[in-house]
């Protein structure tokens, strides 16, 4: 019956048979699983090692057993996780990181969002210099600037002891790259929204908080996730400027510095180290999975142009 149709529409091709489609689906998923394993093996390794005793671990290194858990001895797995969670107070440091991340996210979105909005939507003299500086600051290598940054925070601003928390949060609250992201995103929001609000008598700040921000959930989510990952994974800077943990008081250090301290504890096993790594990776994954859809949307609407 399709022959007649095919004659009339030379490019029409009948739908593939359902069997062929299923085969294609199966192949797709097999390829997908293999690819996923290639990208997942560090996590598989972390999970597998976190179940092992030191001897079992030593025997597995360099062989494919590295990626298989020690099924014979599941009690070791529990012991590893238990000792990490109970003996090393890891939750206190995790809570610190959550608090820092929350503050940094709020500040980062507000400060960089405002700047991005101005750069995208407002006209003012001197804008050319700022646009140039944004690209310039994205390009320069920052590796050597950590020494002067340390001096600025410690000597010039005099942020010491408990106050040095400010020195962790404020430098993380500004990100030129996020200003750039916000600018790109806001440029693609149609003018009509603002104009409608302006007719209703809203001022610029109102427009930003009541019109622009609600439209910007995807980019806010994107910035929030990358802020979170940044704060959660940072250790060099916080450990340089925060005071070391004291007896009896609540520590100020974030989670990654705790991980490093744990690694250097005498007698700790590789299994326990991996257990602590697994525990600290969970929040990142949860947040990333939850926000993934928004990230794609956020980058998509921004339409990223250099």
């Amino acid at each position: 019956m399709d022959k007649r149709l095919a004659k009339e529409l030379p490019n029409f091709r009948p739908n593939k048979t359902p069997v062929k489609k299923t085969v294609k689906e199966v192949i797709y998923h097999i390829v997908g699983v293999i690819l996923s394993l290639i990208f997942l093996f560090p996590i598989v390794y972390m999970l597998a090692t976190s179940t092992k005793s030191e001897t079992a671990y030593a025997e597995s290194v360099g062989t494919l057993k590295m990626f298989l858990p020690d099924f014979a001895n599941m009690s070791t797995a529990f012991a590893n996780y238990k000792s990490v969670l109970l003996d090393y107070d890891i939750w206190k440091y995790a809570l610190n990181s959550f608090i820092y991340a929350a503050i940094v996210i709020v500040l980062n979105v507000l400060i960089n969002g405002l700047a991005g909005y101005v750069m995208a939507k407002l006209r003012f003299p001197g804008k050319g210099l700022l646009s140039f500086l944004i690209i310039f600051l994205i390009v320069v290598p920052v590796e050597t600037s950590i020494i002067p940054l340390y001096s600025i925070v410690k000597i010039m601003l005099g942020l010491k002891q408990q106050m040095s928390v400010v020195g962790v949060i404020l430098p993380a609250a500004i990100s030129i790259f996020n200003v750039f992201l916000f600018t790109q995103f806001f440029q693609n929001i149609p003018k009509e929204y603002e104009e409608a609000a302006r007719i209703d008598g809203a001022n610029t700040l109102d427009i930003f908080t009541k019109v622009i921000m609600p439209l910007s959930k995807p980019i806010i989510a994107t910035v929030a996730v990358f802020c979170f990952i940044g704060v959660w994974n940072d250790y060099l800077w916080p450990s340089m400027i925060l005071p070391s943990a004291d007896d009896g008081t609540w520590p100020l250090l974030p989670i990654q510095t705790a991980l490093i301290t744990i690694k250097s504890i005498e007698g700790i096993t590789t299994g326990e180290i991996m257990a602590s790594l697994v525990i600290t990776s969970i929040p990142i994954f949860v947040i990333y999975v939850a926000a993934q859809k928004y990230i794609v949307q956020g980058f998509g609407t921004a339409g990223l142009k250099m």
Partner: protein
Amino acid sequence: MLKTSLIILVLFIIAFGGFVVYDLATAKKRKVVYRFKSSLTAYLMLLPAVILAFVFIMLPILYSLGYAFTDYYLLRPNNINIVYFQNFKDFFEELSTKGTLYNAIKNTITFVVGVVPLQIGLALLLALFVNRAGIGSKIFKVCFFAPVVISLSVTAFLWEQILAPGPNGLLNSILGIFNVPPRDWLRDPKTAMPCIIVLSAWQGCGYQMLIFLSGLSNIRKDLYEAAALDGANWWRKFWLVTWVGLRSTFVYILITVFIGACRILTQPMLMTGYMDHTVTLSYYMYNKGYTERWVGYSSAVALLMTIFIGGITFIQRRIFREKK
């Protein structure tokens, strides 16, 4: 330090003021109208970002670039003298000896040339692979992103085990099945850099995959249908619709991956240490500044690198800029 910073601040304000005056003076010629109130609002809204960026980003960068003209030795913070262009002279002298610096530049170029196409290509393939409906592709998307968030020290250790020398190394034992003789992947100058390129592309491509995905989501579906009606095969569909639609995303990714690749540091540091066949320019700079304590010289290298990367980025933007 406070005094110096204030001087820089004043200069910055003067520079900015100069631009404001210039903009205002040429406003008529450019047919632009500035409104006082709107401009004031803009400045006020920019203020928090500008203050923070000035203190925590600009100042440190300017200081570290300024150190390029001094003999700052890490252990003598009280005794810094201006040596003008001595560090740059040393840089070119060092370069002419064809020593570590020469290798660092050579390796960095090898790395950039290798990793930029590989990482972008991988990211694009992965993006095309997961760009469809269904729970499977959603899970794959998460998996491909995993290396981006896992601590690099864990992945570096694992790759070291995989690339371990001798017949019992993981990769060697797999290749041994096909009668390929074992290699010392990371110590052999021929294979070390390619290994680091593959590792870096594998580690980073998940992030660019996400950006490509967002680019793909912007391409209208009816364009594919139109192409299908014209009898286009998948290749022509990709070339005429997907590639054209991804152009600006591609330029963005090209520039960011390029900048990132020029600054490669952690991977060789964790995988091989400071060896002539894998040292990169960033690693050289880091090592000169921190390990060997020549902050001044290291800053000079940073300054030259900035000029170089900036220049190339500028050319890239010129070449790929969309014609309006």
